[in-house]
């Protein structure tokens, strides 16, 4: 808190002095004051939305199984009607690219929206701070409690808080593991004390991570660990909406009586109550301008608006505004007009194209896979009947949860005859759910039908139930002698 006092002192009144400090320092604990207002309400909306999703989804059922389950043992990932396999990694890449681009887009438009409202670090810190607030009281009460000697009151409150924090953390861990290991079996297993080693480990690990990050590390994660804080400035420009302090209106700051009026004694609108600093979860002073520690949560806006209201001044001394807006005293309308700048349009276009592409390709994603492995050692040979023969190894995988039949057709070269090498697996009928069938096929072509060399052919597999078809390219080789 010494920092605040130091900032509050007018620089020019004391001569510059040299203070020696170590390069390492224990981080000061931040006692963020609770705040209410528009942006805080928005954050709570996002807390509820994200957490209802996180805690609720594992309990949903779909076709007699868990709706969202990442079954690592079976290497299958269920998301409602969609089933993914490790070979569908491309969709994960798609998702990550879309997420990254969304981050770019939202950051270009309105700064660290992600950090302030939806990042798990923020969301869990908000929940943990709420619990802390309910049990230990608001800022002043908490500071007083920490300073006081240990007594029954302090012991009760501190242990109650630890209990609440740990319980919530563990439940988060259970839910997390519930995405990978059926939660409807997991929870009874916990009750019956029959957890597997890995499940126990991950519940404890994730629980501890939640407890440690949201209870203790808080802003330290944003300031020292999160890479986003470091490169966000590359996505900002002069038209990005950021949390700003209106310096022209606020300075010179100074305390005054309520009766004195907004601009008494040549002062600006800032009454230097430092509440914006007290509410800041990362402990910065927004009046010093944009800093990398600012997670754009808008708590200082809510707090300042509240103070401005009480003083009878106009709101918006601290507000969402752009660098251009502040410098040129633009109206909200003028700032919004700058929304459609090239960078935003380009981001939006790429994002839309990728999202549509992803949805379309997911929609047309076939429910089975066909791999054609051409024998390389046996390039081509003659049968006793004088036919040219090539050998292929077909791998067909049924990716659905039902039994399916398939039909094979080979096209691309006139006169090709399909011959099954092994009567053991003569066809593609009755593939069980997730069964992979390996079938060796010989393709025969009468000699002299076509020129020597490599010919493009296609293996077409059709699902007899859904008429869905998959076409795989391969080659047929005709020898030259």
């Amino acid at each position, binding site marked *: 808190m010494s920092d605040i006092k130091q900032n509050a002192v007018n*620089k020019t009144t004391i001569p510059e002095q040299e203070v020696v400090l170590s390069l390492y320092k224990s981080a000061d604990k931040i006692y963020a004051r609770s705040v209410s207002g528009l942006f805080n309400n928005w954050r709570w909306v996002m807390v509820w939305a994200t957490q209802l999703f996180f805690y609720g989804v594992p309990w949903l059922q779909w076709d007699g199984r868990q709706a969202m389950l990442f079954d690592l043992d079976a290497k299958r990932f269920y998301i409602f009607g969609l089933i993914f396999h490790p070979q569908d990694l491309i969709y994960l890449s798609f998702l990550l690219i879309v997420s990254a681009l969304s981050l770019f887009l939202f950051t270009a438009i309105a700064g660290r929206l992600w950090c302030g409202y939806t990042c798990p670090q923020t969301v869990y810190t908000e929940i943990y701070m709420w619990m802390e607030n309910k049990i230990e009281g608001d800022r002043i009460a908490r500071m007083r409690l920490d300073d006081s000697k240990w007594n029954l009151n302090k012991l009760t409150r501190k242990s109650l808080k630890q209990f609440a924090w740990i319980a919530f953390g563990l439940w988060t861990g259970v839910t997390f593991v519930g995405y990978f290991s059926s939660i409807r079996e997991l929870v009874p297993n916990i009750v019956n004390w029959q957890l597997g080693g890995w499940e126990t480990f991950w519940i404890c690990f994730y629980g501890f991570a939640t407890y440690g990050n949201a209870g203790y590390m808080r802003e330290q994660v944003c300031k020292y660990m999160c890479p986003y804080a470091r490169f966000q400035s590359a996505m900002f420009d002069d038209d990005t909406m950021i949390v700003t302090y209106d310096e022209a209106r606020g300075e010179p700051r100074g305390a005054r009586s309520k009766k004195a009026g907004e601009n008494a004694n040549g002062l600006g609108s800032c009454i230097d109550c430092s509440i914006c600093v007290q509410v800041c979860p990362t402990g910065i002073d927004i009046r010093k301008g944009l800093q990398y520690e600012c997670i754009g949560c808008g708590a200082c806006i809510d707090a300042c608006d509240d103070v401005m209201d009480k003083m009878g001044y106009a709101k918006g001394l601290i507000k969402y505004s752009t660098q251009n807006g502040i410098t040129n005293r633009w109206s909200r309308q003028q700032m919004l007009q700058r929304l459609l700048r090239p960078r935003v349009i380009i981001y939006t276009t790429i994002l839309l194209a990728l999202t549509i592409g992803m949805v379309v390709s997911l929609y047309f994603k076939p429910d089975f896979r066909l791999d054609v492995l051409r024998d390389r050692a046996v390039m081509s040979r003659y049968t006793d009947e004088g036919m040219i023969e090539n*050998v292929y*190894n077909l791998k067909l995988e049924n990716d659905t949860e039902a039994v399916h039949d398939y039909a094979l057709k080979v096209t691309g070269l006139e006169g090709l005859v399909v011959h099954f090498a092994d009567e053991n697996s003569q066809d593609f009928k009755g593939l069980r759910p997730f069964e992979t069938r390996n079938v060796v096929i010989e393709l025969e072509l009468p000699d002299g039908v076509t020129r020597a060399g490599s010919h493009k052919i296609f293996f077409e597999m059709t699902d007899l139930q859904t008429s869905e078809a998959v076409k795989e390219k391969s080659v047929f080789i005709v020898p030259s002698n």
Partner: protein
Amino acid sequence: MNDFVNGFWPIWISTITLGGIAFCVGLLIFASRVKVPLDSDNTNGHEWDGIKEMNNPLPMWWVGLFIITVIFGLTYLYLFPGLGTYNGKFGWSEVKQYEAEVAKNNAKIAPLYAKYAAMPVEEVAKIPEARDIGKRIFLNNCAACHGSDAKGSRGFPNLTDNDWLYGGSPDTIKLTINNGRNGIMPPMAAAVGSEEDVKNVANYVLSLSGSIHDSGRANAGKDKFVVCAACHGPEGKGNQAIGAPNLTDNIWLHGQGEAAIIKRIHEGKNNVMPAWKEKFSPEQIHLLTAYVWGLSNK
């Protein structure tokens, strides 16, 4: 790390590794003692192009993590290889890990194979489930040469007919898979005689299987076939004891026709089938044998 035969490189690696860690620790200690002169606006006087360096001390927990990392690094280097030729306290190596995993996997699948291992090959070959296991082993390991359908190609024997270079009994097949085979035909042209003689012998060989040939040349070559008979037998029916092919059937491992035979007489051939007993357990070989035997004994 045994690749380092020169004594210099292990020392070089160790010096860089340990020196790097020592440097990091030194930097940490050095930086903890340096004091920063601080101006009242929280800058330390460094300025470059209008940008002032602020005093943002590193949090202590970060220093703690740094120390933990150093301790972890040193412990790791003590337990595992990483310093030149030092093998580490545990003596861990990739080869050992691989062998341990293979052993673990073999132990896991052992019950699956146990019941088949007790049955004779002929019986096992009748069980579809066992054939499927054998087929998978075949596709992953043997198909590269013999083809996915086991019918081979030029130079690689067809396993689905009933013609065997070394014999087709289950025991012989198992022996072939276990130990591999090395079939040698030496270049015989000099022993046979002149170029004409070679051509005549080739035609005689063709006549043995009733293939298209010049009967005049075949008659002329019959006497010269004596040198071939040492391996292929006086009637050209081959010798399974040494893997000499039967020349009287119409199965040609290295190509059909006069030109192909002349080429073999001139150049000879060294045919190698690798040994597999190191890679598979005896139970797996048993199933593989059953699959291969079953291909020609349906």
